[in-house]
């Protein structure tokens, strides 16, 4: 069967880098990791400063995936 027209190459946003986004989805949900008072940082119990740090984790991972998958 002859193809009447060559279709444009199939686009995709598949990339192994996307798996990295599992990290900021799963890590903030592991309560045993951060449900502690000490060590404190600037007076913040670990429960609070570590969860603030997860925000940075989210920023870093999404930025990396964005850069690596950009075309």
């Amino acid at each position, binding site marked *: 069967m002859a193809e009447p027209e060559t279709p444009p190459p*199939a*686009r*995709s*946003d598949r990339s192994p880098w*996307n798996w990295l*986004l*599992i990290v*900021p*989805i799963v890590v*903030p*949900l592991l*309560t045993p990791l951060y*449900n*502690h*008072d000490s060590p*404190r940082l*600037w*007076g*913040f*119990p670990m*429960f*609070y400063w570590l*969860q*603030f740090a*997860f*925000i940075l*984790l*989210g*920023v870093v*991972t*999404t*930025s990396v*995936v*964005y850069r690596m998958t*950009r075309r």
Partner: protein
Amino acid sequence: MSDHITEIVIFTVLFLLVSGIGFVAARWRAPKDMAHLDEWGLGGRSFGGWVTWFLVGGDLYTAYTFVAVPALIFGAGAAGFFAVPYTVIIYPLFFLILIRLWSVSHRHGFVTPADFVRSRFDSPTLALVIAITGIVATMPYIALQLIGIEAVLKTMGVTGDSALARHAPIIIAFAILAAYTYQSGLRAPALIAFVKDTLIYIVIIVAVLYLPYKLGGWGDIFDAADKKFQGTAAPGDGILLNANNQIQYITLAVGSALALFLYPHSITGVLASKNRNVIKRNMSALPAYSFLLGLIALLGYMAISAGVKPLPGAKEGTVDSNTVVPLLFDQKFPAWFAGIAFAAIGIGALVPAAIMSIAAANLFTRNIYKEYLKRDATHAQEAQVSKIASLVVKVGAVAFIVFLDPQFSIDLQLIGGVIILQTAPAVALGLYTRWLHRGALITGWAAGMGLAFWMLWQIPNAATKRAHFGGSAFPLSEFGFDTKKTIYVGFVAVAVNLIVAVMATFFLRAMKTPEGVDGTTPDDYFADEGDPRIDKSQTPVDTVSST
């Protein structure tokens, strides 16, 4: 009232300023023809990185969030901090999943999530179910924005004796909001969001630097909160989670994140951006708001440390814990700064309220009006219907607050988050696969809704002594488990929804029930700005009216 005159003046001036901006917004990036739903309802689908950042940020982090999350921390402690993990996990989810919705909507001109479902599953009925769920979930959310404004007005002493006098300022504020949303559409909240977010950032940065200094440092603030929770009889509070509320914490974070991206107003904000890169870049930039939200949450502890006593509630013997943050500003800052803070919260209510009413109006127009009432509606008619629907939605929201107990709106908002989750199998999974049968999706939705209402009905509220709809933490002992642990209702309901949908799919396949034709192709989910096929699918009439 005279003690608060400076605050009231500043609040009013800033409020009028943004109202002016709202009206001028119609001419901002002005389209050639506003009489098109893409223009009025999605700002021309043309927003770049900065506008999207302010718009989506102003959309997701509502005034109610700014008032209610610290109130929760004030009352219960660590459990209220779920807002932070919740707003961390949402962005990777957006990045992976919602981007596909943007592409397929861009390619086919979808305005609402129900438009997508209709085309994907070839089922106007399923689309109707999704649209009604979206509208019902959004309405109380708009009403809650008014509660945010009310907490501020109450603190400034702007209250009256009769119900009408008490609500007059809110009715006026919403009338102005309705007028400029009617005129400018999504451009109004997009432009106002710049002012709102700038004010919020300034206020919070000043507050988190200044207040700990006044209150003896962060260590003392946490210790004061700890001491308060140790002294109360309630078992669930504390500055850390306990053995029983961790599952609740996790499932509430996941469930809220999923719910947030299914809410019509978040989807509207995302669809208004101009290309995929704008969205992807924003997923790295929007967490700045999560940081802000975390700091705002901690204002709850500062209020404990500063000895704030919430104002009395609507009923005798209750307290309105939503007033703790406004009171903290009122007591610890000079009047002019408190006025700016109050304006930030008040204006903060307007942006999401506008976007939500636009999103609900778009659902009505596209999936009810055009589908069932007037199939041959032109673009101009669609835009007009949507404008009127947005007015109706706002009148409804005001009526909720004026005529019903505000607690009713809070209950409905709680239910809203749970029911919007029930659209996840169709909307979110639908972006990846149409394996689930359209009939099965409706069956699963019904099962999830039924279970959700039953579970919410079972939950009492210890604080207000009501037997039903007391929260979203469901005791697992009700399912026969021998434990005191609790779980988020929405999470259980959507799991059951999915299981039922899978089983019903097998059944309907076996019965050879027709599945309809997929209106989308795999390629559509990656389409980007400037896709050559976009104009081809439109009829000549469409092209004339949209260019």
